[in-house]
């Protein structure tokens, strides 16, 4: 079981709730994914339309735990204020902390991120920082009080997979006791399996499921890939090597030339 700030979860697949064709498709995908945690956000609500109220009812009916994000925040102040607002609405100290530093790649502003993490951890939040795979930044986030890291795989929504597998291996090796949840950029289930095989504890998927031709079917595929990847990690994968190593024994080979 995966432990996140003292909470045990069975599923190692976290699911985003944005960009689905309809609320019904979202609900179907969440069920198919077997995810226990979904990410949510805060946006402006009109007093007349109340679309946010309907969404919140749907999420509560699904019976999943929510991880609110600070998506769209570009400064420490915006992120901290959004976290306060999210804690009140969602009733959880969990916050997926995003401080965006660059608009083309939506790369985290790691300087703002570490500062916001320090403030929020000090206020009792349980922070899930969306970060790069940089070891020094990770060290600072942990020193700030973060008990989970969310390194990116690739830019949000890009579907490129794991741009820096070496970096994730390094993170795993340096912080063996800190849950690593690969967030962003995964496109197909094999990317998720690769992250789990590398020893990452979980993945967060949104666009790859929501924008798939059949989101519920893709959610099932990601759930299977996450299970396979984790099982492979526990089984102990072999080391890669540069040259062939015959699998059939050489001793006893007939001389037939």
């Amino acid at each position: 079981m995966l432990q996140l700030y003292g909470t045990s979860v069975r599923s190692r697949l976290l699911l985003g709730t944005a960009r689905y064709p309809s609320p019904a498709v979202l609900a179907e995908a969440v069920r198919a994914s077997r995810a226990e945690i979904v990410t949510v956000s805060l946006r402006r609500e009109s007093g007349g339309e109340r679309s946010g109220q309907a969404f919140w009812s749907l999420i509560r009916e699904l019976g999943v735990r929510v991880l609110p994000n600070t998506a769209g925040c570009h400064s420490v102040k915006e992120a901290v204020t959004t976290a306060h607002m999210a804690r009140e609405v969602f009733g959880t100290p969990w916050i997926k902390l995003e401080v965006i530093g660059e608009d083309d790649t939506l790369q985290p502003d790691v300087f703002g991120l570490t500062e916001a993490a320090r403030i929020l951890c000090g206020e009792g939040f349980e922070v899930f920082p969306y970060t790069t795979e940089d070891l020094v930044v990770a060290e600072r986030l942990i020193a700030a009080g973060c008990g989970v890291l969310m390194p990116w795989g690739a830019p949000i929504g890009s579907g490129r997979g794991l741009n820096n597998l070496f970096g994730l291996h390094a993170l795993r090796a340096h912080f063996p006791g800190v849950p690593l949840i690969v967030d962003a950029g995964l496109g197909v289930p094999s990317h998720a399996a690769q992250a789990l095989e590398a020893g990452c504890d979980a993945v967060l998927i949104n666009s790859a499921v929501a924008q798939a031709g059949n989101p519920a079917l893709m959610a099932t595929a990601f759930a299977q890939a996450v299970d396979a990847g984790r099982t492979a990690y526990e089984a102990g994968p072999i080391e890669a090597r540069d040259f062939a190593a015959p699998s059939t024994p050489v001793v006893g080979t007939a001389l037939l030339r």
Partner: protein
Amino acid sequence: MRILVNGVWRESGAAQLGAVLEELGYRDAVVSTAVNGEFVATGVRAHTLLADGDRVEVLAPMQGG
């Protein structure tokens, strides 16, 4: 009094944030509020006085990744 609510200028006769929310139809809605970039908790909305030109944000749960 003119206040900017979620990016739209509104005329309001109410003085407190709680009353403004009532006036705009947010009664019983699950929302969180900020005034001029500062979080205002539910419990203090009724006592939070607004001034002409204040920026009010009213946010609700929404889809997110």
